[in-house]
């Protein structure tokens, strides 16, 4: 994404393009959150207070499972999608709408490649929370922070986006372990709380 969006923001107003990308991420994440939030409300209506028990058991177990894969402790095939954001969108939709749509697509969370298995726990937790604002907060923050990460990488790259992509690739495994370790801590905190 950095390699694609980086050269594009050199055309036109850079800050506007990057702000639209972040806005797209927030809207994409919030959209997923609204859908999952309503699904959670349906579950709450069906299960009542039992949903809290389901949340307290399923979410920590899912985090433990995902963290084990992200940390490399469980060498099993990862659940992922091979789809990538279409590179033609800025041509097909226009410059700024294309950049917004990239943010939206990535912000949805599950329509493109899933780099960390811990990511899959977010929509699960959003649904099982049985609360619309909670689901929107979880997914919108994911969409926003994912878009901000792209903006930060583009900002730090200067003009050399290929080198920035290489630098990011060298950090994928350490980042995966950071995400896995964080998922473990979050699982423990949910059990304690």
């Amino acid at each position: 994404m950095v390699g694609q969006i980086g050269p594009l923001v050199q055309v036109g107003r850079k800050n506007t393009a990057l702000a639209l990308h972040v806005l797209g991420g927030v809207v994409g994440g919030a959209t997923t959150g609204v859908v999952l939030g309503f699904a959670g409300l349906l579950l709450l209506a069906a299960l009542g207070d039992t949903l809290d028990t389901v949340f307290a058991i399923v979410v920590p177990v899912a985090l433990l499972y995902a963290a084990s894969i992200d940390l490399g402790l469980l060498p099993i095939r990862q659940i992922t999608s091979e789809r990538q954001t279409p590179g033609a969108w800025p041509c097909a939709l226009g410059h700024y709408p294309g950049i917004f749509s990239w943010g939206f697509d990535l912000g949805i969370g599950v329509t493109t490649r899933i780099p960390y298995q811990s990511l899959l726990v977010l929509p699960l937790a959003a649904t099982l929370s049985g609360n619309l604002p909670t689901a929107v907060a979880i997914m919108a923050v994911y969409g926003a922070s994912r878009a901000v990460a792209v903006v930060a990488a583009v900002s730090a790259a200067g003009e050399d986006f290929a080198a920035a992509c290489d630098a990011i690739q060298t950090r994928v495994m350490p980042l995966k372990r950071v995400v896995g370790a964080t998922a473990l801590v979050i699982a423990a905190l949910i059990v304690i709380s």
Partner: protein
Amino acid sequence: MARTARVGGLVALAGAFGLVAAMLAGNADPSVGVPSVFVLVSLSLVVGLSTAASP
């Protein structure tokens, strides 16, 4: 130096957005508890910020 400050500012901005979102969600009285909302939003933040390389 300026680039580091800019990246740090962006990450801080994402953190502030997460904090506000978690506070707003916490005010909606979630049955899973406010602490769970905060820790899950924190996980969203960490996973999202770690995903710049993904297409």
